[in-house]
């Protein structure tokens, strides 16, 4: 199916694509058919800088299990950091 459901979040950071680094200002997250991954559906994340055009994009297509593992890993890594380093 196409879920038609898309979650957008504003970000601040950088990412690296095949050509170069780019500023990442937005993430689009959705569960839908992948372009490349060999699965019927994947959790897809587009890390983008819309001001730089459509190709300024780092794309991830992860199985649901992989996406949950990634979420847990991110949370684990953040939890291990002293809070004074992550408060801005």
């Amino acid at each position, binding site marked *: 199916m*196409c*879920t*038609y*459901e898309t979650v957008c979040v504003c970000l601040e950071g950088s990412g690296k694509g095949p050509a170069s680094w780019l500023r990442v200002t937005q993430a*689009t997250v959705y569960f839908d*058919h992948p372009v490349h991954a060999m*699965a*019927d559906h994947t959790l897809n994340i587009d890390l*983008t800088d819309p001001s730089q055009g*459509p190709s300024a994009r780092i794309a991830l297509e992860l199985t649901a299990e992989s996406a949950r593992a990634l979420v847990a890993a991110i949370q684990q890594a953040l939890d291990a950091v002293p809070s004074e380093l992550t408060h801005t």
Partner: protein
Amino acid sequence: MATSTVTITGHGGDDVQAYLARPEGDGSRGGVVVIHHMPGYDRATKEIVRRFAELGYDAICPNLYWREAPGAAPDDAAAVARAQGGVPDERLVGDVAGAAAYLRALATSNGKVGTIGYCSGGRQSVLAACNLDIDAAVDCYGAFVTGTPPEGSMRGNLVDQLPNLRAPLLGLFGAEDKYPSPEQVAELRDILAANGKVFEEHTYEDAGHAFFSVDRPAYRVAAANDGWERIAAFYGKHLR
């Protein structure tokens, strides 16, 4: 067969890129508007356009994401379009109208035009046939023609529009699909029957969503081959 990239006049008078494939010869023939899936105006969709030319039709696929991302790679364009909320229904209808008008203006046109779409395009094929003078429509496993979209979904269903369906409809579905589920297909069948619409349908037991997609794990060769035969027969009946 000859293929080219052309510009059509879409919704609001906008220039929209489109992929065109035409059989050789000057004989009179019907046309097919192919509506691409959410992943965009991609290689697989262009192969489908060429297949319709091979079947004897002038076929065209408008790039529904042309406005958001002209010239971008199909996957990048799809990402931009999704981030911006997708293709509004009104705009889709206008773009398909422009594609149909383009086909009917060809010297080879017999005046008949069909639509076909896969996945989100299946819903949009039905949407177009509810709003435009189309001669035959094909819905390949379009989600939310009926049924209730999840809360927050970008699109509603077409239940209130189905009484306005102007063309015979062929629906091809997978029994293992959840969107549309067999229950949602049954709802579609019941609504169209209650409104006296022509609806041919087939649900394949050993198939789920996207069984026509030759480049995806969902591909089911038996269902896809049979589906293509049914599409050829349906268009042969209504577009010749």
